[in-house]
């Protein structure tokens, strides 16, 4: 079984590039050049230098002693929350802005839900002096005012997506429409392991630094490269893809994906795509997605703005269907409780997305000598208002 993308852009049954002809030249240009660009020494040098000096990598692999004691297993946290801009998102935007430069593009567009990917994109555009337009659902703009302000401070233009449900999926539609209307000078930085091939693979490769570091860090700490489990939360699935990447072909490493169950998987207010989704096409990619029987894409719900995407990356659909990945879904309540628990056991306030992964201990019992690595994908500063409202702090 292969877990890497094939030459046609598929992971098993999922992936491909279901795009209108208007996007074909852009996507084809990227498809034929991304690997080549990523392999050039000058790209590698600049990418690694920026990850080190600008992002602050390697991010620590932290042994969570009190959390480990509580759940009677060995828990390591991969601290992506310590990256510049506060989450794993920047690994991908650094990579893609360098690809855009190699392709001679002078304008960047991006979509954002909660604003994390928008901020990470605006950040690298400021760094490179490139024009940046971020599409964000009109409703999300109201809900995420601090991140809108950050993007503006960084010099980006934030354009409201006013179509459809006015949230992340519509912001993605608007970004794609912008790309259709600006086919020559613009690069679209997709923020997750979604979209038409080669995006899922390209984003995964940029995020793969997470598992690359876990391997040598674990070797230093435990004398072994492979943990027993890697755990990550999944919306579109970019932090998860990066956390799993170098372990996909090692069957002794268990892969655990945690989706947002919202108010309960079958409550009608959920984002548990693997449980509720059917095979279909979203944003240029064949994957599992939440939709009506008639094939209309539905609006998911989660307390976490970064997990409420109606689809999931094609790699993850493949991991689900083949059984390589074990999928769990965690409710708002369980996630919030796990976020508070980590804060008080380890002194780390996680993003609510990440809190879903931390709630895995409710559903899965690990052995005392298991080594469990959890991707601490982002920090909780952006979520303080939600935590305040929820816990009446």
């Amino acid at each position, binding site marked *: 079984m292969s877990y890497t993308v094939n030459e046609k852009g598929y992971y098993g049954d999922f992936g491909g590039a279901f795009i209108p002809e208007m996007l074909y030249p852009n996507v084809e240009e990227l498809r034929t050049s991304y690997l080549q660009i990523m392999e050039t020494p000058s790209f590698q040098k600049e990418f690694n230098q920026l990850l080190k000096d600008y992002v602050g990598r390697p991010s620590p692999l932290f042994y969570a002693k009190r959390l480990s004691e509580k759940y009677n297993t060995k828990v390591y946290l991969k601290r992506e929350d310590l990256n510049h801009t506060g989450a794993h998102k920047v690994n991908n935007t650094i990579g893609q802005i360098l690809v855009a430069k190699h392709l001679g593009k002078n304008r960047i567009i991006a979509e954002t839900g909660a604003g994390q990917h928008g901020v990470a994109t605006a950040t690298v555009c400021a760094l490179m002096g490139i024009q940046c337009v971020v599409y964000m659902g009109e409703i999300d703009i109201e809900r995420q005012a601090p991140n809108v302000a950050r993007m503006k401070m960084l010099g980006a233009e934030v354009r409201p997506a006013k179509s459809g449900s006015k949230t992340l999926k519509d912001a993605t539609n608007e970004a794609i429409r912008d790309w259709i*209307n600006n086919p020559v000078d613009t690069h679209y930085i997709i923020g997750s392991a979604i979209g038409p091939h080669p995006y899922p693979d390209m984003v995964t490769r940029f995020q793969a630094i997470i598992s690359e570091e876990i391997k040598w860090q674990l070797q230093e700490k435990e004398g072994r490269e492979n943990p027993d489990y890697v755990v990550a939360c999944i919306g579109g699935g970019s932090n998860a893809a990066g956390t799993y990447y170098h372990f996909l072909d090692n069957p002794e490493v268990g892969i655990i994906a945690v989706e947002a169950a919202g108010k309960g998987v079958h409550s009608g207010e959920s984002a548990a795509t693997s449980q509720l989704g059917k*095979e279909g096409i979203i944003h240029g990619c064949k994957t599992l997605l939440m939709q009506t029987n*008639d094939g209309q894409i539905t609006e998911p719900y989660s307390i976490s703005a970064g997990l409420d995407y109606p689809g999931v990356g094609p790699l993850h659909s493949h991991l689900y269907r083949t059984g390589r990945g074990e999928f769990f879904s965690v409710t708002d309540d369980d996630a919030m409780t796990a976020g508070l628990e980590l804060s008080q056991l380890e002194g780390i306030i996680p993003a609510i997305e990440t809190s879903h992964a931390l709630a895995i201990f409710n559903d899965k019992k690990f052995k005392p000598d298991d080594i469990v690595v959890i991707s601490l994908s982002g920090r909780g500063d952006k979520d303080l208002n939600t935590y305040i409202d929820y816990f009446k702090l």
Partner: protein
Amino acid sequence: MNRINKKLAADKKLLSIYFTAGYPELNDTVKIIEDLEKNGVDMIEIGLPFSDPLADGPTIQESSTAALKNGMTTKLLFEQLADIRKTVSIPLIIMGYFNPMMQYGVEAFCAKCQEIGIDGLIIPDLPVAEYHEHYQHIFEKYGLVNVFLITPQTSDERIRFIDQVSNGFIYMVSSASTTGAKNTFGNEQSNYFDRIAALQLQNPQIVGFGISNKATFEQATKTAKGAIIGSAFIKHLTHNGVDSIADFISSIR
């Protein structure tokens, strides 16, 4: 011979109209089709609404959202069209995104189209390579013409491939844009129209996107076989209602 191929063989420039099924009102579908034929339209694209129409500008996004809100579904559209061939004889094409067709079942969808008397499909997000590899035999089994888009950015080599796989006409997108985005044609369009004409393709070309009035219709059909009007017609329905179709068509030709 498919009605589309017969119509394309006629010695005239073709006017084709797109509308969104279920808009302005859920049950306007049959009336709009009948009125378009009565007023001399040559071909009709019936839009199957989708929640996430990537290639469409604001007008068709809004008509699609409204149609879905009105209750339009694939199944209902087929029910509305069940008797359409008793009253309408011009070519009918369903234009929609691939996901609703996948969920209905591609083969079941095509079989239903044949049963009703639909002549062809336009599916902007089903790329030619996917079609060629997985679906062409199904479309052909049910006698459907599949129509592909080309744009000013499409290379000559790719246009030749699309020409080979096509069996009706080629949908020439007038400019790099979503539907309804531009209202006039400049030098870029003229050069593009001339470039395509010079390729001497085996399939005739029909121009769409940005055709909104008599002037753009005439300019587009100088070299192409016909033109498709969508957003401008939908705007007309929004402002003037479904009883004013004759006014719109007579303003074009």
